[in-house]
């Protein structure tokens, strides 16, 4: 009977792990949809999540000792509560956004940080609470119950959740359907923790019924919760790459990607500028490539009589929606739609084009930044004819070029100038870069007139909006000393980061100082073994982010590969923890050896990326990820054992691991990579691990050997 109860608790731990991971991914996606869709928001969300988890771990110990000792029934209540909570969590993020902030407005860094922290607070704390509380339930029955087993089961649940979400649920169901699917087993296993006599009492049926109703309600209100204040919701889909909604307001259809309007049916100015600025420079263009396109562009392209237009779009859902709602026009026999990452497509094709038009959003994310780097421009150059033209655009300005934007344009200008003899920037709603090896004419209306092409915007507004004075002012303001934008050292991301702060009249300094102070206080209070777990959590999460960025750079954004990497980084934890728990030798020494192995791995990563580059096979990154997570998993039972494997040690170990992971996420994606680049970010993580070795191997504390 006792063994049955233990198994029931273990089942709860596994299903909590599945539910937590899926909820975490859904919360990250919801935050991206509600705020800025960049890595900083991802980092902030994960940071808050992990910090809250760490605090929840500590709370569990406190509550267990001083208030409500862990029992199976109490754990059952926690599980049922946890099963229903994700519904409120997602609705809170989705609906409170427009209550707390002005509808339709973007939000600054600190507001996002605080909002996510408060929105994630109930679930983050509860999920952090549940894991050690489950362990305490078992330890109250058998004090020697190994904490490592719970850690392993939680990891197993996480891996299962990651695989389930990334490879199954994302393709088949909506967010609230996913919540129902992963929480029904938790609901059932939680219910089974109640003693059988209790389960037959009506009040306990109600306890089971309420979360179930909440889970079902979530699905039924899902579409309604996305209804726009302006017009109506014409289409909604949570695709692999983000949320796509189409709003219909009168006759206007606007496609929103993660909450930002990207394409609309009535934007003739942008369509004409994007198409005619570059194509007017080619006398008889025959073959061109669009890396993403939007409303009315194809209509404008048709005026040039091209034979082939290859149109690359990463997300198949986008093209299907664009064609469905008339946001883009098909030209049968001319347009060839390719669903692939644009960079990956160029790397694998032999086609040569007269013009390549990159029509992507601002490079605020690492994924988009890959289309504005030296390597990308070099790739483009190889696919252009001798007199071919590259065009891309970035956010424009009306009357004054601000300093961060000047730096951004200068960096782009300096980068692309290395590959083309002539680069002309045309100001306006967007700033268009025209890059060619032959001279570029500024008199676009005249060129179009010679070709007999009529336009509604360019013909009538160009001479008033793009005066020679404005064009010259822009081109002459470039700072030739601004660093180039490179894959490994994404200078644009850094600029965009500071531009984001400037737009909201804030500075990142306060946050960075606050994090350093909090981190300092925490590090002073923890033991050496906790520091090992903290630094390993930090390094492993940091490594995961480095690998994701590197893979995107070398292979393009391939959803299944990114999912695989995340899974591998979780997958090594379970066998690692199993290996660590079976080690009978000197545990302190092994901790040091594993630290050394993590340093070695990171050095290998640096060398491979520096010298291997695009020649590296994907399997390298997978093996790297597997060994990193094996090391991380292995250290947990060793450190826990050295700390005594009691209630306190378990809670502290879980906390250290989570808090370390939180700092690793933030440090790597928001500070190290944007400011110092990928290679130096990796060196930073090596430095942290060296510190870990120094601290553990020079200490003389007496360990509680178990």
């Amino acid at each position: 009977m006792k063994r049955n109860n233990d198994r029931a608790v273990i089942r709860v731990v596994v299903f909590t792990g599945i539910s937590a991971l899926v909820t975490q991914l859904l919360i990250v996606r919801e935050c991206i949809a509600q705020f800025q869709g960049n890595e900083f928001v991802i980092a902030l969300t994960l940071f808050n999540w992990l910090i809250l988890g760490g605090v929840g771990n500590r709370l569990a110990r406190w509550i267990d000792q001083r208030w409500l000792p862990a029992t199976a029934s109490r754990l059952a209540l926690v599980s049922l509560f946890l099963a229903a909570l994700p519904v409120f969590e997602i609705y809170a993020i989705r609906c409170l956004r427009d209550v707390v902030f002005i509808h339709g407005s973007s939000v600054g860094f600190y507001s996002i940080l605080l909002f996510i922290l408060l929105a994630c607070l109930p679930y983050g704390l509860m999920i952090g609470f549940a894991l050690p509380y489950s362990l305490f339930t078992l330890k109250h029955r058998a004090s020697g119950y190994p904490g490592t087993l719970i850690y392993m089961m939680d990891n197993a649940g996480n891996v299962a959740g990651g695989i389930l979400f990334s490879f199954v649920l994302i393709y088949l169901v909506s967010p609230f359907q996913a919540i129902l699917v992963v929480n029904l087993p938790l609901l059932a296993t939680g219910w089974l923790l109640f003693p059988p006599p209790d389960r037959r009492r009506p009040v306990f049926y109600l306890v089971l019924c309420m979360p179930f109703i909440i889970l079902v309600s979530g699905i039924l209100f899902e579409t309604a919760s996305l209804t726009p204040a302006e017009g109506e919701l014409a289409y909604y889909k949570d695709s692999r790459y983000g949320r796509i909604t189409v709003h219909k307001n009168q006759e206007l259809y606007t496609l929103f990607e993660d909450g930002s309007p990207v394409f609309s049916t009535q934007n003739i100015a942008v369509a004409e500028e994007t198409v005619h600025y570059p194509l007017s420079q080619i006398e008889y263009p025959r073959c061109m490539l669009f890396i993403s396109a939007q409303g009315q562009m194809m209509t404008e392209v048709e005026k040039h009589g091209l034979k082939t237009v290859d149109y690359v779009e990463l997300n198949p859902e986008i093209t299907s929606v664009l064609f469905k709602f008339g946001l883009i026009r098909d030209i049968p026999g001319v347009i060839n739609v390719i669903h692939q990452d644009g960079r990956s497509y160029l790397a694998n094709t032999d086609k040569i084009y007269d013009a390549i038009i990159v029509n992507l959003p601002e490079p605020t994310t690492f994924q988009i930044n890959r289309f504005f780097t030296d390597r990308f421009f070099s790739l483009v150059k190889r696919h252009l004819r001798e007199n071919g033209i590259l065009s891309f655009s970035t956010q424009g300005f009306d009357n004054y070029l601000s300093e961060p934007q000047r730096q951004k344009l200068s960096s782009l200008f300096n980068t692309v100038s290395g590959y083309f003899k002539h680069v002309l920037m045309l100001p306006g709603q967007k700033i268009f870069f025209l890059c060619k090896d032959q001279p570029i004419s500024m008199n676009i209306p005249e060129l179009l007139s010679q070709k007999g092409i009529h336009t509604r915007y360019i013909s009538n507004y160009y001479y008033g909006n793009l005066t020679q004075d404005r064009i010259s002012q822009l081109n002459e303001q470039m700072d030739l000393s601004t660093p180039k934008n490179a894959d490994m050292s994404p200078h644009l991301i850094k600029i965009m980061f500071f531009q984001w702060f400037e737009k909201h009249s804030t500075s990142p300094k306060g946050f960075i100082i606050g994090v350093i102070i909090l981190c300092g206080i925490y590090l002073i209070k923890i033991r050496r073994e906790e520091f090992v777990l903290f630094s390993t959590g930090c390094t492993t999460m940091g490594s995961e982010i480095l690998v994701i960025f590197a893979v995107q750079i070398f292979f393009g954004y391939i959803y299944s590969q990114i999912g695989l990497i995340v899974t591998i980084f979780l997958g090594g934890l379970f066998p690692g923890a199993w290996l660590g728990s079976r080690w009978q030798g000197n545990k302190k020494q092994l901790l040091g050896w594993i630290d050394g192995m993590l340093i070695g791995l990171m050095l290998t990563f640096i060398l491979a990326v520096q010298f291997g580059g695009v020649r590296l096979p994907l399997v390298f990154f997978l093996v790297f990820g597997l060994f990193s997570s094996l090391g991380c998993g292995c250290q947990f039972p060793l450190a826990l054992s050295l700390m005594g494997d009691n209630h306190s040690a378990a809670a502290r170990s879980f906390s250290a691991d989570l808090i370390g992971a939180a700092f690793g996420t933030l440090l790597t994606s928001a500070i190290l990579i944007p400011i110092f680049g990928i290679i130096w970010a990796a060196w930073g993580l090596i430095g942290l691990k060296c510190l870990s070795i120094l601290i553990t191997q020079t200490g003389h504390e007496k360990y509680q050997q178990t």
Partner: protein
Amino acid sequence: MKNISRRDFLYGSAAFITTTLSVSPFPAIAKNWKSLSGPTDIRGKILKGDAPEQLWKWSHEGFLYSKLDNHKVICGICPHRCLLAPGDRSVCLSRVNIDGTLYSLTYGNPCAVHVDPMEKKPLFHFMPNTKAFSIAAAGCNMRCLNCQNWEISQAKPHEVRHVELFPADVVSAAKRSGSQSIAYTYTEPITFFEYMIDTAKIARENGIYNVLISAGYINRAPLLELCKVLDAANVNLKSFSDEIYLKLNGAHLSPVLNTFKTLHNQKVHFEITNLVVPGYVDDADMAKQMCEWILKNLGPNYPLHFLRFFPKYKLDRLPPTPISTLTHFRELAMKEGIRYVYVGNVPDHEGNNTYCHHCGQLLIKRNGYFIPTYNLEKNRCKFCKTIIPGVWEEPEKREPYGLRITDIPEVRDPPRMIDRQILNTSG
């Protein structure tokens, strides 16, 4: 307590779900976001102790302010009436109290200088097809979430690069560029009031028109002073709701309405723009109320421009305005009795053209900034001889747009920024 049966449980659950789910709160809430969501007042704040320790070359004592005890001052230019202690900086970011004297920090240091078509302002009934020498200095007394020029309107003067153009230099540069007017524009010209009025006086003496492009958040006394040298204005009536003004723009509506009345009483030609922001300003009832107020207080002759909204600055998560909404508003306003109603930011729209309010004939056809058809004789309709309100001059063959600004004396960079010149005056 009696145990419930499985059937009771299922029936009870089904009933609960059905009743709960029949109430869907979201659509109702969604339709009311504009009043429910976020802060209700985004007005700017006085920045305590933010004034520079020393004045710079482009400082000028404030035009209209009161001195109080303890070296405090009250600025009298705009309705914020900033009460500044020594060392404080005003809401508009460009005025400071230094030892009990109010100074403007934007005198002779415009951060944006361009030559634009008059139609771009937009002014459709004032000197069509002419050029406006346009200048702006840093700062604004409003906090519009959709500001097109936020890089300079929400910046302090020392944070932006600027050129040096004192009032007489502006007039000289305007003449050299072939402009008939000087437009005080882009940011909020009211915040560089001293610079504007001194320049305007010299411009008038030199036969150059003065044009104000503003949100109209100004007190009556300085406006009356300005009207003495002002030839035309375009004032942005951002909405006809004080609630929306406070929420999206950080100001009140009534001072703006007073500005229209003053300009009307002082017989300054002005045009009204209204940016139709989806979800906020696209309410037909509100547009109707606005038109009624215009007719009652200003009459039917002032041109009204409904502008299309595009996502900008912080208001970047809204869709653009549907063109049909603008068309509908134009029809609505004309039906109410406003004679000249235009649609802006929409190429090739019928609402870009001017039709005689009496005979309905096409007077001015506008293809962007080009005027292929012009059917006015002086200020009268060529067909029915009705006087058309505005300031007109026969559009002759003028130099094309795009002349370069030459001989701008010097470029000043903010102390901590770049050391490159922003304007190369050689070519």
